[in-house]
Structures are given as structure tokens and as C-alpha cells.
């Protein structure tokens, strides 16, 4: 039985308005992926639109029955990896945390937000190829197979890259934590010396 994606793609070949349906179905996934890849809302929007434009142009070449999402991610990943970070990163917009769990005290909420901010920043510091596997695995919940298709790399490479990416991420988080405690220590020493 054909999937909804297949039906929409077949329709879109004849009727552009059916393509709008496909765009609205996937825009949020794609936008979030590109935002996490580039760290900038403007870049995410530009690249997401470019991805859809390329998909639209390649509709005729799309083989029916092959899954749509790896194809979409493949185009998006290529754009994101080749994209030079030109714009300032967007960080800490209130709406970015709209879905952050608000249970508990305001302090706990602030702490959760800060932790999320740290993780996002650490992901941004990874090399693009490693950033892509982490985001595809943990935010888009793609399987190893799907990641291999999206990145056009062998399954073994996915395993190795994901393993290394996580270790790198751990290391970055540790470094950043050390840096921030060093800063705090420095600041407290300054206040201390100005008091005495």
C-alpha cells in the first residue's frame, strides 16, 4: 500500500498545491534539524526553503516506494555541511524553551534551561559531520540505517562516528563546565579582593 508521502509526491508532480501539503508536513522537523545544525534561525529558514526547492525540482526523479525522509535529510545535510556559518547564532530566545518542562520551582526551570543551552552550545562546537549524526540520532530519532542513507556513508561509519561524536560531546561539556567554574572562581576572587 502506498504511503501518504508517496501519494503526496505523485500528486505534487502534477499539482504544486499538493507540494504545499508535503512542506507543511515536514517543515518543523526540517527547520529544527537545520537550526540545530547551524545555530541560527535565519540560516535554518533559508536552508529549509532551499531544501524544499531542491526537492521540488527533483520530484520527477523520485522513485516511488523509496522512503521520503532519508532523501529529504540527505539534501538538508549536504546544504548544512557546505554552509559557511555566516550569521550570528541565535541563542536564548524565550520561545526556544517553550516546550521546556516547567515543573518544579522557577530555579529548577532556569537550571533546566541553562543545561539545554549548554548542550546546544556544545553541539555547535562539534565538526559538522559529527554534529549531523548526533542530531539525526537523538532529535530526529533516525535509525543507523536511515542515518547511513541520509549521510551516504556505510553503516560501520555511522557506528564509529556516533560513538566518537558522543565522546567529543562529553569532552566539550566537561571543558565548558571547567571554563565556567574557572570564570566564577575568577569573579568571586575579584569581588573578594575588592571587598578587602
Amino acid at each position, binding site marked *: 500500500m502506498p504511503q501518504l508521502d508517496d501519494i503526496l509526491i505523485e500528486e505534487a508532480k502534477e499539482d504544486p498545491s499538493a507540494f504545499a501539503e508535503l512542506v507543511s508536513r515536514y517543515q518543523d522537523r*526540517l527547520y529544527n534539524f537545520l537550526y540545530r545544525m547551524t545555530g541560527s534561525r535565519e540560516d535554518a529558514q533559508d536552508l529549509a526553503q532551499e531544501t524544499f526547492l531542491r526537492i521540488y525540482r527533483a520530484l520527477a526523479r523520485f522513485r516511488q516506494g523509496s522512503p521520503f525522509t532519508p532523501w529529504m535529510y540527505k539534501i538538508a545535510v549536504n546544504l548544512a555541511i557546505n554552509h559557511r556559518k555566516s550569521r550570528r547564532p541565535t541563542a536564548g530566545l524565550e520561545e526556544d524553551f517553550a516546550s521546556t518542562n516547567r515543573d518544579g520551582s522557577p530555579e529548577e526551570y532556569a537550571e533546566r534551561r541553562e543545561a539545554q543551552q549548554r548542550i546546544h552550545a556544545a553541539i555547535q562546537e562539534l565538526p559538522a559531520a559529527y554534529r549531523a549524526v548526533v542530531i539525526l540520532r537523538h532529535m530526529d530519532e533516525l535509525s*543507523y540505517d536511515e542515518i547511513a542513507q541520509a549521510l551516504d556513508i556505510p553503516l560501520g561509519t555511522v557506528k564509529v562516528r*556516533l560513538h566518537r561524536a558522543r565522546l567529543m560531546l562529553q569532552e566539550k561539556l566537561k571543558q565548558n563546565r571547567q571554563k565556567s567554574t574557572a570564570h566564577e572562581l575568577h569573579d568571586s576572587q575579584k569581588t573578594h579582593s575588592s571587598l578587602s
Partner: protein
Amino acid sequence: MNCTIARKLIHLYLDNEIDGAAARALEDHASGCPSCRAEFLAIERLALAVESLPRIVAPAGFTQQTMYMIAQHKREQPSWLRNWPGISLTITLVVLGLTLAIQSWDEFLQVLPDAIWDSPSDALYNLLVLAMSLEVSLVVGIGLLTIGGLMGLLQLIMRSNRITSPAVS
């Protein structure tokens, strides 16, 4: 199982990309190895932390903007049509150049042998005529090049207008 293998399996285990036997072997190892257990928890925590990041949604009107952009691109002529002034100019110049060359060569062949047989002064005169006709073709060529250049410039201006006008932000 040694720790090196266990450390690799931890990642596959957390990603559900491991078979039952390997999973049990890892569990066996971890139950007796505190450092691998700690590593397991650390990687699990990290994975959960990334998974808990908020999903940012596309801005309002994204679909309409994207469809508008696609429509704009579609309205553009295919590239061979868009480049027709350049292509036609090249063809014109090549045809003209070839015609002139063939004509001059013909003239040369007609004039030269007779001239050489008749008298050397006639040959000189004919060569002079030939040189002048070549000069005329040079002037015509330069004129055509100028027109071509102007057309190219016009095309460039038109294209830059087309790119800047549909402001999709």
C-alpha cells in the same frame, strides 16, 4: 568480555542496534565492572540531555513563503532561453567570421593566380583591395562585438533586477 568491547557495545545498546546475545553479554560485564557501569550511565545521560532539547518549529507562514519562492523560480525561463542573447551572439559571430574568411579566401584564390601570371603590379593592387576588404570586415566585426556587449550588459541588468525584486525573507 573486556572493557574496550563493552565501551563500544554501550552505544549500540542505547541505540537499540544490538542483538539479544550481545546485550546479555554487555549486561553481564557491566554488572561486574563499575567503571563500565558509570560510562553506561554517562552516555545514557548525555543521550537523554540531547533528546530533551526543545524542538524549534518553523516560523508562521513558512509554507506560503516556500511555495511563493518555488513559484518565483518556476516562472523563470529555462536556462537555455535565459541565455539566448549570449548564444545567438556567439552563433552570429561565428557564422559571420566563417563567411568572411571563406569569402576572402575565395577572392584570394581568384585574384592571386591571375595576378601573378598577368603582372606583378596587378597582383599588388588586388592584394591591396583584399587588405581593405579585410579591414572592412574588421570594422563590421568590432561593431557587432559592441552590440553584443551592450546586449550582454542589458541582460545582466535584467537578471539582477529579477533576483532582487521578489523579496522572500
